[in-house]
């Protein structure tokens, strides 16, 4: 069942949280709502759940218009950011809640609770209280509780927000596997682009109550629809300059540009598209700029090299370790940074 959000607007007082948003959440997929805080992503999630009522617009589950359907009749599983487990109930009672309020038989409840406890690997914690569990365990109880009444849709608000890095990585891949098992249409909110790229089938990038782009991770990364998307996905260098007919100038850098308009422009260059070369190799290259190495940080299989240029300030290049060794990069070294590719945006107009 896909979820269609049609022209939703929602304001809190004077502050517009969602501004005429339309998007389709594809059936059976895991979709990430990605954006900085205040972008409206949590409000959109809560509107889909029915916890928040939109000022205008419709929400449809498949063909059903659920805009005016109360939360409890929407059959939506919702995992809250801080889990919102019932403190006075055991883990098993928490998971059973959604079944017992619908007056399921004790036998059915028992079977379903056992099944879910096994699925979230918490069978031995059935009679513990939430306060006696770790963050990751609580998160899994919240998930099991949301899944118990067999929802049409699973919504998760910042599901990994409150956890430490290692547990977060584990839970991410666990959630992905769970989704591959269940194929339940799921939406989660995150402000972490790596999380979205790693886990989701679809990414909806939001800012200021609007949708910047919706698409597969590859689309969003390779064909960002706006400067915001490119910037938010991170690891990019921004250069200020001016676009002309078929080229753009950024200080002493000249880059090809085939856009329709001329005017003040910004070039977005990914870390891996900024190639460091020995000084001598840069002579005559108009798409390169002289830089000085400030700092080298190793992260995984690549290294981040922070360099400064007289005209563009700090830039970050991301290069494999072997290139780092081949160049003999060290602090204070003078190099040239060649721009292999860049996306150029002219005054709010995508190229």
């Amino acid at each position, binding site marked *: 069942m896909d979820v269609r959000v049609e022209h939703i607007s929602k304001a809190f007082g004077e502050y517009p949280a969602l501004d005429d948003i339309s998007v389709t959440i594809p059936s059976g997929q895991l979709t990430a709502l990605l954006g900085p805080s205040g972008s409206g992503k949590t409000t959109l999630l809560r509107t889909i759940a029915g916890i928040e009522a939109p000022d205008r617009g419709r929400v449809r589950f498949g063909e059903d218009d659920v805009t005016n359907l109360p939360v409890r009749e929407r059959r939506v599983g*919702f995992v*809250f950011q801080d889990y919102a487990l019932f403190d006075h109930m055991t883990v098993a009672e928490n998971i059973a809640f959604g079944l017992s*309020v619908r007056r399921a038989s004790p036998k059915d409840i028992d079977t379903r609770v056992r099944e879910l406890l096994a699925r979230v690997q918490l069978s031995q914690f059935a009679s513990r209280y939430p306060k006696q569990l770790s963050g990751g365990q609580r998160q899994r109880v919240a998930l099991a509780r949301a899944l118990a009444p067999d929802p049409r849709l699973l919504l998760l608000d910042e599901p990994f927000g409150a956890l430490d890095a290692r547990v977060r990585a584990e839970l991410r891949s666990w959630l992905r596997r769970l989704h591959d098992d269940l194929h339940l249409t799921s939406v989660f909110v995150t402000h972490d682009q790596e999380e979205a790229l790693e886990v989701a089938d679809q990414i909806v990038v939001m800012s200021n109550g609007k949708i910047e782009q919706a698409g597969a991770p590859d689309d969003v990364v390779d064909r960002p629809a706006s400067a915001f998307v490119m910037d938010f996905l991170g690891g990019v260098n921004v250069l200020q300059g001016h676009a002309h007919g078929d080229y753009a100038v950024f200080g002493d850098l000249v880059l090809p540009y085939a856009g329709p308009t001329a005017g003040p422009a910004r070039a977005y260059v990914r870390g891996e598209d900024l190639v460091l070369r020995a000084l001598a190799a840069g002579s005559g290259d108009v798409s390169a700029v002289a830089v000085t190495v400030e700092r080298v940080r190793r992260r995984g299989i690549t290294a981040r090299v922070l360099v400064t240029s007289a005209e563009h300030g700090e830039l970050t290049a991301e290069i494999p370790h072997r290139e780092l060794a081949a160049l003999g990069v060290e602090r204070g070294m003078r190099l040239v940074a060649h721009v292999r590719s860049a996306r150029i945006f002219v005054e709010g107009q995508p190229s």
Partner: protein
Amino acid sequence: MSTRSAVSLEPRWVRVLLMTLAFGFLSIFLVLPLGAVLHAALSKGISAYLAALTEADTRSALKLTLFATVIAVPLNVVFGLAAAWAITRFQFPGKRVLVTIIDLPFAVSPVIAGMLFVLLFGAHGLLGPFLSDHGIKIVFAVPAIVIATAFVTIPFVARELIPALEARGPEQELAALTLGATPWQTFRRVTLPNLRWPLAYGAILATARAVGEFGAVSVVSGHIRGETNTVPLHVEILYNDFQYQAAFAVATILIGIALATLIAKSLIEWHAGRRRPPR
């Protein structure tokens, strides 16, 4: 004490002085008077003490006090839940005014509160002609005593619940709704169990106040022995009649209720503290 003294910053004599002062104050203002009450109550022997307690007017006063309490405290619980819920969960015009008004009975002298009800329901009061036309007697009768008791106890439950609800936020209730619970199921199975300790605490404080209330009740009661006398009023009447032993004997009932309240309060604090999450 001895294990903590190693990290204490104050010299020994300061600690001794402060503790002596604290215990000295307690002795002079609490323990000595309590002892004196017990001594006076038992001054004519145990049979005189029991006679004072079982005398008809005393029993009727006790009945009336308990009657007023049994009505006022549940009213207070219902009102406290409603008010605390409205204040912490909804935005509405007049919210600040409501918060302030809840505290009014704390701010206003109970005697003034009593006079308010006389002005409102008395023979020459605002609603007096209407009430006497319909043969309803409120002031100088049992209804006024119940109303006055309810009035002075209003803040207790609400004031305990508001911080508890604010600290918790609405997420658990929202979670219950997404799981398909009706509002009533959500209230009974999620909200109420989470609030039971602050609720019990507020109810106990309200009970203590309801039993001991003097000022407001004194104004509206009319002091009709055996009819509109509560225990505190009865103590005063006996005292003014120079029946000191009987007055103090009846006073021991109030002391007993006060001690029971203190014990119940400590038990709740202990229990609530014990249930806090192990970290």
